[in-house]
C-alpha cells in the first residue's frame, strides 16, 4: 500500500495545505461508505448506553431478587433480557459487561498501538541490527499461541482486574501494529522528502515524528480498530474459561460462561451476551473496512 505524498517541497505550509485536503477527502469517502456509517451509529449507541448504564437501567447490577429468578425476556417489569438465577436483571448485567469489555478493548488498542508503533518505527527507520532483533522478538511472540501465554500469565501473575487483563493483552497484540508500521517506515524512509529532510539536518526524531509518522497514521488507525475487535474476542474467550476478568466485575465472556449450563432452558443467558459481542465486533470490523476503503480511495485519487 503506497501512500501518496506531495511531490513538492517540505515547506511547512505546503505540507499543511496538502494535508488538509487529503484529510477532507478521506473523511468524505468514509461517510459515503454506507455500511461503515450505519455501523458507526450502532456502535456509538452501544457505547453510550454502556457508559450510562446507571442512568438507563432502573435495576442495579447486583440487585439480587430471588423470587424473580430465571425469568425469560418480558416487557412487563422491564426485564427485557430476562433475569438470571439470582433474579438480577439481565439487560443491566449485559450493559455493565459491555462496559468492562469496551474499557479493556480501548485500553488494549491504545497501549498496543503505542507500543507497536514505537517498536515498528524504530525497526523500520533504523533498520539493520535493531530491526533484526526487534523483528525476531516479534516473531517469537507470534509463533507462541497467544491464548496459552495469556492463560499462563494470568495464572502466575494475574489479578483479574480489567486493567491487568488489558495490560496482558497489549503485551501480545502490539505485534500486529508493529509489523505494519515497520513496513510503512521502510518504504517511506526512501522517499525524496525524507531524504531532503535528513539532508537539511533534521534529527532522526524530527524526521520520524514530523514527516514519516503523519503518513502512516492511516494504516495505524485501521489496524488499531481491528486490534479492538481482536482484543474483545480474546478477552471474552479468557473470561469464558475463567482466566480473564474475575467476578464480581462483570464481563460478557463471563456471563456466557455462567449461563451455559442452563443453555437449554434459559437461552437468554447465553444468547444476549453473545449477540452483543458479535454486534460490537461486526460494527468495528465494518468501520475498519470503511476506513481502509477511504484510505485506499484517497490513494487511488492521487495516483
Amino acid at each position, binding site marked *: 500500500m503506497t501512500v501518496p505524498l506531495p511531490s513538492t517541497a517540505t515547506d511547512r505550509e505546503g505540507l499543511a495545505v496538502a494535508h488538509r485536503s487529503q484529510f477532507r477527502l478521506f473523511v468524505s469517502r468514509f461517510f459515503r461508505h454506507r455500511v461503515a456509517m450505519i455501523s458507526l451509529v450502532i456502535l456509538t449507541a452501544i457505547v453510550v448506553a454502556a457508559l450510562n448504564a446507571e442512568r438507563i437501567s432502573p435495576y442495579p447490577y*447486583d440487585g*439480587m431478587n*430471588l423470587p424473580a*429468578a*430465571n425469568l425469560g425476556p418480558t416487557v412487563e417489569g422491564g426485564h427485557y433480557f430476562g433475569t438470571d*438465577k*439470582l433474579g438480577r436483571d439481565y439487560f443491566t448485567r449485559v450493559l455493565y459487561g459491555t462496559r468492562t469489555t469496551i474499557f479493556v478493548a480501548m485500553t488494549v488498542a491504545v497501549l498496543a498501538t503505542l507500543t507497536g508503533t514505537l517498536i515498528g518505527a524504530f525497526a523500520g527507520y533504523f533498520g539493520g541490527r535493531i530491526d533484526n532483533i526487534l523483528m525476531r522478538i516479534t516473531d517469537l511472540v507470534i509463533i507462541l499461541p497467544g491464548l496459552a501465554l495469556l492463560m499462563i500469565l494470568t*495464572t502466575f501473575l494475574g489479578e*483479574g482486574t480489567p486493567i491487568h487483563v488489558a495490560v496482558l493483552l497489549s503485551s501480545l497484540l502490539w505485534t500486529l501494529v508493529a509489523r505494519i508500521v515497520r513496513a510503512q517506515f521502510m518504504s517511506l524512509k526512501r522517499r525524496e522528502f525524507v531524504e531532503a529532510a535528513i539532508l537539511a539536518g533534521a534529527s532522526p526524531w524530527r524526521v520520524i515524528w514530523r514527516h514519516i509518522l503523519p503518513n502512516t497514521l492511516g494504516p495505524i488507525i485501521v489496524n488499531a480498530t481491528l486490534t479492538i475487535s481482536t482484543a474483545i474476542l480474546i478477552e471474552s474467550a479468557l473470561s469464558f474459561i*475463567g482466566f480473564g476478568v*474475575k*467476578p*464480581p466485575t462483570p464481563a460478557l465472556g463471563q456471563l456466557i460462561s*455462567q*449461563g*451455559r*449450563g*442452563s*443453555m*437449554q*432452558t*434459559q437461552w437468554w443467558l447465553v444468547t444476549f451476551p453473545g449477540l452483543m459481542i458479535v454486534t460490537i465486533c461486526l460494527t468495528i470490523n465494518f468501520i475498519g473496512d470503511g476506513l481502509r476503503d477511504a484510505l485506499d480511495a484517497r490513494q487511488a485519487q492521487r495516483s
Partner: protein
Amino acid sequence: MIVSCLAVRPWRFAIAGALVAGLMLASGPSNAQDVPQGGTMVFAHEQEPGTFNMFHPSGQSGAVAATNGLMQIGTYRFPPDGVPVPFIIEKEAEVTNDPFTVTYTVREDATFNDGHPIRAEDYAFTYETLVNPEWTIANRKPYDLITGYEIIDERTIKFSFSAPVPSYKKLFHIVLPKHDLEGKNWDTAWQETVPVSNGPFKMESWDRGQQIVFVKNENFFGNGPNLDRIVMRFVPETNTLLELLRSGEIDASDPQPQPEIISTVANLEGITVDAKTGLLNEFIRFNFKTPGLDKKYVRHAIMMGIDRQAIVDQLMKPVDPTATTPQSWVFAPSSPNYQPKFEALGYNPEGAIKLLEDNGCTRGADQIFVCDGARLEFGYVTTAGSERRELTFEIVQAYLQMIGIQINADFSEAAVQFGTRGPQGQYDLFVQGGLYDDPIPLMPYMGCEGTINASGYCNPELDAVMNEITVTADPVKQAELLNRMDSILAEDLPFFPVFGLSRMVVYNANRVGGFDVSPFTDGTPSTGGWYWNWNSQDFYRVQ
C-alpha cells in the same frame, strides 16, 4: 406415559423418580429375577484419574473415588440411612475399650476377582503397606494409631490402637490383595491398572483421555452385579455432559451439584436426578489475625447478616427437597443426638447492625462499618471455576453489603487454595466443604497447638474437650462431649456452616437404574469417598 405426564411438573417427576428407584431398591438385589440382567451402562465423569492408588497424594481426586468405587468393596458399606453395614466381614467388628481394639472376622466366601480368598493376612498386609515409610502415603491416619495386630485364625485378626478411633467403621474400606501386591512397589503398582480387586467390577481397558471399561467380576461374592459392563467416559465440561445425556450418548453421570444443572435437568424428559444432602457442609472459616475478624461481635454479625435458609431454598431445594439449613456441626438432623447449636445466630440483619453499633462501630461515608479502627472489608477465598461457589459468593456479598460489611472476591485454583492459602493463613474468609464428627481431623486446624492452625484461633477450653473426645469410646459420653464442642464452636464462631452439600447422580431412567445416592462420605478416596457407586452391583440396564 407416566414419564411424560410427570415431566410437566419437574419436582414431582424428580420425587417420583426417586420413589420408583427407591421401590426398586427396596425389593432388593436378592430378588435378582426382577431386575434385568446384563447390558452396558455408559457413565460420564468429569475428570480422568491420574492413578488408581487411592492412598497416594496424586490419587485424592473424585475420579479415583469414582473408579475405585466400582472395583473395590470395603469392610463396611454406608447406605443412605447412615447405618454402616458389614460387608467383607461376616458380622460387626468386635470392639474393646481400654485398650481400644478392633477384631474383624472375614466372611468365608469373600474372594478377590481372581478367585483367591480374602483372609486376615490381607488385612495385615494392607495395614503394613499403609504404615510403610517407603511408600508415599497421603494420609496415614488413623492407621498410625495401630500399635500391633494379632492373627487369631485364618479369617480373624485383631488390631490394637494407642487411642480410641470412634469412626473405626471407616477403616479398611480397601483391602489390598497380598498375593498380588507382595513385593511390588506400591507407589506404582496401581498406577496404570488394578489387576486384582474385590468389588463388583474389574478393570478391562483404559483408552487414555477417552474412557475406562469395567467388566463384571464373575467371582464377586456379594449379590449381582446386574450389568455386564460399565464404561466410564471422561467429559470435563458440565454443559457437554448435559447435552450428552440429552442425546443419549451417555446414560448417567455424577456432576457437581451446580444450580443450573438442576433447572435444566428438571425439564428434560426421562432424566432423573437423585440427590441427597448429607453430613457435608459448605462452611466459612475466619482468620483471627485479620483486624476486625478477631472481634467476636463482628463474626456474630456476619453470620446473622446472611439468610442461610434462602440460600438453601434457592440453591439446594430444587434438587433435594429435604435440604435444610445446617445448625449443628457434629450431627445430622436425623441423628438422635442432634442439637441445633448454631440456631441462635439466625438471619437477623437489624440485629446484626445493632450488634455492631452497640459495640462502638460507626459507618463510614460509603456505608461500610469501621470497628475500633478496623474497616470491615474482607477477602473471600474460595475455589475458582465452580459455578456454585461463585454463586454462593455473590449471595453472601449481597447480604453482607446490606449490613455494612464489604466482601471482595479472591478466587484461587483448588490446588493453590488448599495447598497454600489455607495452611498459610493467606485469607480473611476461607470457604470449603467438610464435616467433623470426629475431632481428630479438626485438631490440626483448631487446636491451639494445631500444626495447620493458620487462623490464629485458640481456645484452651475447646482443646480440653477435643482431647477428651479422643480418649472417650463410650458413644453416649462422646455425643455429650461432641455437643459441648459444638456449643463452644457456635459461641466462638471460628467458622460456621452455610448450607449442606448434596451429592447427586443424574441418569436416564429409560435406560438405566438402581442408583441410591448415599451422602455419608467426604469424597476423599483415602477414607472411602464412594457416594454414588457404593451399591454398583445393584445398577441395571432397562431392557
